[in-house]
Structures are given as C-alpha cells and as structure tokens.
C-alpha cells in the first residue's frame, strides 16, 4: 500500500448473533414446552457440533454491528469517529485493536497499535500505585525499560507521589482515574486508538488530558479517537468519520462532519434526549423554536401540584453553555397539574443563526428533586439578515451590533463627521 497510508479498511463487517426469548403464552401447554425445548436442544447441539457459538434463546437474530466499512487513514492524521450509540464505533475500535476479529472484509495496519478503550485496564486493587503502574503499562504494551524511564513523569502527571506505595483500593476515585490516565498518556505507539476516555475525572483533569492528547497528536502520530464530546473532536481531529447503524455516512473535514452529525441528531424524537430514568414520568412534552415569535415554546404537563421550577440552558453548536434562565428568576413557580404552554423569547438579535442545543429541566425549587431532564436537544435558530450568517466557531455564537467609533488619529485640523467613516 501507499507509503503514507497506515490503516486501510476494506469492506469491513462484523456480525453478532443474539438470542431472543419468545413471548410466553398465558397458558403453558406441556406439548409446546416439549416441542420448543426439543427444537432449541437440536439447534444448540448442531451449533456445538459445528464448533459455533451457542446462543441461548428461542429465536436467534443476526445483527450486523458493522457492514461494508471502508476507509483509509494517513500517517499523522487524527481521525475522529462520531455516531450515535450503537452506530458501531466501539466495534470498529475493537477490530482495529485486534480484540475481536471481523466477520468479513479486511484491515491492513502498518505500525504498532496501542489501544486505550478504558482507563485503568487491569488495575488490581490489592497492588500499590507503583506496582499498578508497571502492570498497567505492560498491559498497554510498554516495555519495562520504557515504564522505568517514564516512571517519574507518570507519577508527577497523576499527582500521587505521596500514595505511591499504598494499595490502590485505598485511593479516592479521583486519584485512581488520574493514575490510570497518567499511565495511558505516556504511551508512545505509532498508532493510538482511543475510546471515550476523556469523560473521566474532574474538569481540571479533563483539560489536562485533552492537552496531553493534543500533544500526542501534534507529534505526528496517527490517532483514532471516539468521543461524544463534539468539542474535543473539533479540537483534536483533522478529519472525521461519521457512522450510523454500522455504515459510514461520510468521511470529511471535522467541521462539516460535526454539522452533519448534529443535523442527523435532529431527526430523533424528544425522548432520545431525556435521561432514561425520567422517560416513564416525562413532564416536558414538547420543545421547539417558533421563528415567527422568536421564542422557545415548551409544553409542560406536571404530574402533581407540587411547586416546580423550570430551567432552560442554551448551548452553542459545540454544546458549551451560553446562558441559563430559570422560572424562579422572575420570582415565579409552577403550581398546577394542567398542561401549560410556556413561551420564552430568545434574544435572537444577539444570536447568530445556526445550530444550538437546549437543555430543559423541571425540578422542585429547592433543587433537591428532579422531575424531568432533557439534555442537549438540538434547535435551529433562524433570524433576519445578520452579518456572518452562521454561528461558526471562529465567530462565536453571540452577536452584538456594537457601534465602532472610528476617527482619524490626528483629528485636530478638521473634526470630520463620524458618518464619513462609519454609519
């Protein structure tokens, strides 16, 4: 293959076989049970004889986690992989890091691959921090000599000097994660495969991790990076692969891919953004942006008459918060069990048109109990003519029609009217 292509995937596919339990009849007939058991036993015996995987269940279904995936990665590229849950991202990473074998197609890889699908793989709670550094390092593919050389650096990065000889079971979860990431961050393979690992630790440490990743990527290593954090993808990656239901939607420069990804997210129902625990008791029934009134319209149907506070947070296209507004800001609460329609006018004169996200929550005014939470619902804000038509990351999401005051530096001779330069 061409010299600068380090990973080439051709028609990659991965099939899983999953079993389903049949719906049990209300009246169980012995005859049916016997027939079904015999059928299952026969199928399992046949599978076993052929050396195939035995799948429990009454019916089996084939599921292609990946299908017909082809792409190439050049040396030094930082490739982001995005897609919804179940799009096949993790399966792809598992194939590339040799954890599992593809069902069809093939991958050609040039150079040593280190994969980081989890921080702290193989950490043993009984062993000390020092011992775990060697253990984890070896598991990630470092040699003993290499670990020895970087040992001090790792310890300094993790900030655990004092607890080096304490078993890690006595560590706080923060220390544990810091140590785990520190080892991983000092890997120096030619190709690094990273799954959602930056989503650990506190904000401060996450920032440090992201910096370290940028550092690694900057040194000409090839990096494959999966994340739900669009911001991290945009900051780290040069090119982006979008997966959907096991197929490639596209491979393009990051900014285009991110926009496409966000657009594909808009097709989802509102429940997709609701935390699973609130799905059965959903209160926020609908949320949309009404361009004519330039307002966000919420339909809320509280379960009971307990007082409620509502909050709305607007995020920019990279999911960073722009501002928040609460019902209690106005000294108000919601006390009804009838459906209410709430209109919140947005300051669109200060927002560039484009893609935004909105999070909405309903909770009691003391903020101890949440009734419903919607996270990062994409909304599209349109507005009248405005300079710089999109909320491109270069310009930021906010717009203020500021009046610039421009006049000649030496204005003594003849003070001109301001309109001469600026209107």
């Amino acid at each position: 293959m061409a010299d600068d292509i380090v990973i080439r995937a051709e028609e990659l596919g991965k099939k899983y076989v999953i079993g389903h339990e049949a719906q049990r009849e209300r009246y169980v007939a012995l005859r049916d049970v016997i027939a079904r058991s015999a059928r299952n036993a026969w199928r399992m015996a046949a599978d076993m004889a052929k050396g195939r995987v035995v799948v429990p269940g009454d019916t089996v279904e084939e599921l292609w986690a990946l299908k017909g995936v082809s792409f190439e990665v050049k040396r030094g590229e930082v490739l982001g992989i995005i897609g919804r849950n179940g799009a096949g991202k993790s399966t792809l990473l598992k194939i590339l890091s040799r954890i599992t074998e593809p069902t069809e197609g093939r991958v050609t890889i040039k150079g040593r691959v280190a994969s980081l699908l989890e921080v702290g793989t193989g950490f043993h709670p009984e062993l000390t921090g020092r011992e775990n550094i060697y253990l984890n390092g070896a598991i990630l593919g470092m040699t003993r000599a290499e670990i020895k050389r970087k040992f001090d650096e790792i310890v300094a990065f993790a900030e655990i000097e004092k607890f080096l000889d304490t078993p890690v079971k006595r560590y706080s979860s923060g220390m544990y994660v810091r140590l785990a990431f520190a080892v991983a961050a000092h890997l120096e393979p030619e190709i690094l495969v990273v799954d959602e690992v930056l989503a650990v630790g506190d904000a401060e440490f996450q920032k440090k991790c992201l910096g370290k990743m940028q550092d690694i990527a900057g040194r000409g290593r090839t990096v494959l990076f999966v994340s739900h954090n669009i911001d991290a993808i945009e900051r780290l990656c040069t090119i982006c692969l979008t997966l959907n239901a096991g197929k490639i939607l596209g491979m393009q420069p990051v900014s285009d891919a991110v926009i496409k990804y966000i657009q594909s997210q808009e097709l989802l129902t509102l429940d997709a953004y609701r935390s699973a625990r609130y799905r059965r008791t959903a209160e926020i029934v609908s949320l949309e942006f009404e361009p004519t009134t330039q307002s966000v319209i919420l339909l809320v149907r509280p379960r009971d008459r307990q007082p409620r506070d509502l909050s709305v947070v607007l995020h920019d296209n990279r999911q960073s918060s722009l501002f928040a507004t609460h019902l209690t800001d106005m000294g108000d609460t919601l006390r009804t069990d009838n459906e209410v329609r709430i209109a919140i006018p947005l300051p669109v004169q200060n927002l560039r048109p484009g893609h935004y996200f909105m999070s909405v929550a309903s909770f009691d005014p003391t903020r101890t109990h949440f009734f419903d939470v919607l996270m990062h619902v994409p909304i599209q804000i349109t507005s009248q003519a405005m300079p710089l038509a999109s909320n491109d990351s270069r310009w930021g999401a906010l717009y203020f029609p500021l009046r610039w005051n421009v006049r000649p530096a030496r204005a003594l001779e003849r003070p001109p009217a301001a309109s001469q330069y600026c209107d």
Partner: protein
Amino acid sequence: MGTILAAEPRELILEPGRAEKHYWHDIWAYHELFAILAWRDVSVRYKQTAIGIAWAVVQPLLTMIVLTIVFGRVAKLPTEGTAPYPIMVYAGMLPWFLFSSLLSGASNSLVQNVNLIGKVYFPRIIVPTAAGAVALVDFTVNFLLLGVLMFWFRFIPSWHVIFLPFFIILAMLASLGPALFMTAMNVKYRDFRYIIPFVVQFGIYVSPVGFSSSVVPAKWRFWYSLNPVVGAIDGFRWCVLGGKSALYMPGFLLSLCIVVLFLWLGIAYFRRTEKTFADLI
C-alpha cells in the same frame, strides 16, 4: 523511543479466519506481559493473606496423612522399595498438586480476567500459562516440605534427583494441554467451571498418588499409563526414592506421547478459538 518503536513496522492484516503468521513471535514479543501477569498472580495470592503460605503447607500435609492412613495402614498396600510410605505418597502428591492446581488455575484465568480480554489485545495464551506461575510457587513450598519430611524420616535421596527439573516440566506440560482446552471451553460454555473441580477430585484417586503404580496388575500397567499424570508421578518417585523405585519404561513412553498429544490438541484448539473470546466473554 521505546523498544516497541525500534521494531521495524510490519504490515498487519486482520481478516476473518486468518491464521496468525507470527503467532510464536508475537508471544515472545509479549514475554514481559507474561512475566508481570505471573508476578501479579503470585503477589496477589500471597499479599495480605497470612494464611496463604500456611494453606499451601497444611493442605498437602493433611492430604498426605489421610492417604497414608487409608492406603498404607487400612488397605496395607506396599510402598516402593524401602521408602517410608508417607514419603512415597508425598513424592507422588507433589506432581499431582502441580498438575491439578495448574489445571484449575488456568481454566478459570480467562474468565477472571474478563476486563483485560475485552479491552486490550495480547496473545490470550499468556493468561492461562501465567496462572501456572502460582502453581509453581505453591509447588516450591511443598517441595521444601518434602525436604523436611525426608529429614524427619532420615531418608536420603539418590543421585537420580538431578533429573527432577525434567519431571517438573513434564508435570506442567501434562497439565497445560488439558488446561488450555478447558480454558477455551470455559469461555464458551460456562458449565465447564463445574467439571474441573470434579476432575481434580476424581483424579487424585485414579492417579497413583496414594499408592504406588506397581500395585497395578502387570497386564493393565501399560494402559494405566494412558493417564498422562502417571508418567510424571512415576518419574518423580524414581528421582526422589532412588534406585529402589524402578521406572516402567513402556508405560512412561506412552504417558509421554499422551502428554505431547494433549499439548498439541490444547494449543491447536486454543488458537482456533482465541479470536472469538472477546465476543463471548
């Protein structure tokens, strides 16, 4: 740059059913991981467990006493040559425990290391073989106990004892073949977990541990050696008990062949299935 990067970049092709071209080379490349996993297993076993060492001593000692009473006193079976019965039993127990603890340790090892299997690549064979290190450490403790026992009975081993390392390796290889097979089966069909303790419990009576294999009728002796542990146990006794214990050659060679056959089968089956472990576990 680390030594990892010093290695020339070779092309790696991942394809369904593709036999690994560099399989043994790959295993060598991961020898440091093997060492560190072995060290982890040993150190975790003896860490924070005051009883860890004691357990390694008490268990064989009690077993030896029971076997001596049942086979030596009650059944009045003969010993080999002039060796005291307890020493004869103990010399047979050493390879047996090495065999059985490697078998049970290895076969559970992959299931216990689920988190590794699903998250990183390495030749999977490293995990069950590293579990053998624990068996070897326990063996060393037991072996020291044999020394104490021989001193107690004023028994002096012959010069044959210099061949002992060979038989230690034989006992481990005899175990490794079935162990690899069991390990792979255990990942696929979890009920194998219940079979192994049964095999181990059963095996101590089927194998010549509590008695000398010379009590087996001559016409059955050859076929008795189909049990791969028989060769290792006979060899051990020949080393430790000296010239008074004769090695039955045809049987020993048969045992050796069985060991090699099982080892080959075990490795072949393990290699064939190891790529699917991550999907099954």
